[in-house]
């Protein structure tokens, strides 16, 4: 199923080093950070990499999510995701 959106939940209380460590693991697995919150991170990740992210000691769960276009702030979230994604994708010139 390849690239999908996932919610990566944190284990325990939020702190900056822990959040960075989880984000680093996600980037190592070829994932992209779409939005960071105090309780978890919304990421775009290849589903074969889920076990690798799940094995991080500060990760409590990795669950697939979708964006409901009728949601209260779906459009706003979409913009946030797109903006954050654009900062991480490198477009190579042919």
């Amino acid at each position: 199923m390849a690239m999908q959106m996932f919610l990566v939940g944190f284990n325990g209380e939020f702190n900056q080093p822990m959040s960075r460590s989880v984000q680093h693991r996600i980037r190592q697995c070829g994932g992209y950070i779409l939005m960071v919150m105090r309780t978890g991170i919304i990421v775009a990740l290849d589903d074969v990499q889920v076990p690798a992210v799940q094995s991080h000691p500060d990760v409590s769960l990795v669950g697939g999510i979708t964006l409901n276009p009728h949601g209260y702030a779906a459009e706003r979230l979409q913009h946030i995701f797109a903006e954050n994604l654009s900062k991480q994708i490198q477009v190579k010139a042919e």
Partner: protein
Amino acid sequence: MPNVGAELASVPFGKMIYDMASAIARSQVALDKASIQLVKVLASTTFDYVPDVIEVLQPNPRTLPGVTDSDGNPIVITGVQVSTNVGTAFPLTLLQAGVNPTFYAFTNSTIEVKMSISSTQESSNTLSVGVSVTASADFLFASGSVTSHVNFTSSNKYSYSVTGSSSMSTTLAPVPPPKNMMPRFFLVNAMDPSKITISQS
């Protein structure tokens, strides 16, 4: 001789199908439980949502000190004043915002059994017969002997082999959230309580 039909009949298709169906059912339950757990997480994960930012542009004409036209009148330039009003932030859950858990379903399952049966039979017989006669004669007596031998060799080689392989495959696809597993949203307009909007993801 091998009986292909009997060999095929000995393949435990029923058990294979049952085992596969049972594994799929267990996996489906586990996947659904994980998605329901995710619904709880999404419903309890909040962030501060700023509903609106109002920017009001108002004219703000002003003169530049020391700059006049040819008649000595001060030059008025158009200007603009921006007043900003940020709406009060309120906590919004990810579920309200529009993030839904993904539910998965097994859509297609296949069991494939391949079987190869081969048998060979070789038989060989050899027969050899030999007769030897010796005779001798002398003045007073004569003697003779006859010997014969029969060698018979029979060999049979019989080989029979059955090789089989089976493969099972199934397809997992994301599906829309089942209605019974998703919460309903009731929007009560306090300005007009008679209007209640009910929605569901």
